[in-house]
């Protein structure tokens, strides 16, 4: 397996949608390719960081104000 072939399957490996056979081929490639191992690990980390950190904060005061406005408008139309 070449690095290009590995990259084409990177998402499937990360999302765990590969067959056992393909997974074994990908693992074999990782066994001797440090670059692809770095790409796999850092891409996983990228996703994890975006999942676990709030990029756009919604402060409690704004949240309450918006919530109240939504409910007021719903009650009006309902």
């Amino acid at each position, binding site marked *: 397996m070449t690095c290009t072939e590995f990259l084409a399957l990177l998402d499937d490996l990360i999302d765990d949608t590969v067959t056992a056979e393909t997974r074994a081929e990908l693992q074999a490639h990782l066994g001797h390719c440090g*670059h692809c191992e770095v*790409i796999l690990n*850092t891409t996983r980390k990228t996703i994890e960081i975006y999942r676990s950190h709030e*990029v756009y904060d919604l402060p409690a005061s*704004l*949240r309450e104000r918006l*919530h109240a406005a*939504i409910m007021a408008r719903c009650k009006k*139309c309902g």
Partner: protein
Amino acid sequence: MPIIQTTVEQLEPHPDVALVERVRGGDVSAYDTLVRKYERQIFRIAQHITQNREDAEDVMQDAFLKAYEKLEQFQGNSKFYTWLVRIAVNESLMRLRKRRTGKMVSIDEDIATEEGSVPRDLADWAPDPEQNFGQSELAEILRKTIQGLPQGFRIVFVLRDVEGLSTEETAEMLSLSVPAVKSRLLRARLQLRERLSRYFHGNKRLKEMRLGETRNEK
């Protein structure tokens, strides 16, 4: 027979289904619960797409109001959250069109770029690299990095990886094919990885240098 009964009992409907039914029966307080449950996510999605706080506030309000008004149209066999996100995505894209009058806005925009699709930065990151930054500094790095992605990549990444929708749900929501979503997701992930590498290298000197760049760019 007892085995079948046990299986049926395990397939409990999603708690949203009961809430939606209560709203349909005229119970507004049930809608209050639904709004509270999803307002953060809807605000986040709107911010990611519009990249504007005021627009995100408007989108969040309009999306929940529209969902309330159209609740009769909601099919119980789809997830309320997915249905709500679809409304919020449409409202966000409409808001973008308004802001950029005369300029077509579509999620096909800017996707010709191949930048970052071929990994160039192959140095490993520090262990738990986010620990090297303060909370607000990290948020700024993440915000700035994702804002630099082409819109069509950014929306796919946010829906799939941040909000946890499936490839099929994302494709349907954005009127894209499944292969198109997969291709955009791979490129979004690789581009973000490439850009974050600048900050997260194990090499301390390099990290300091990059931080200096960020400060200068402000």
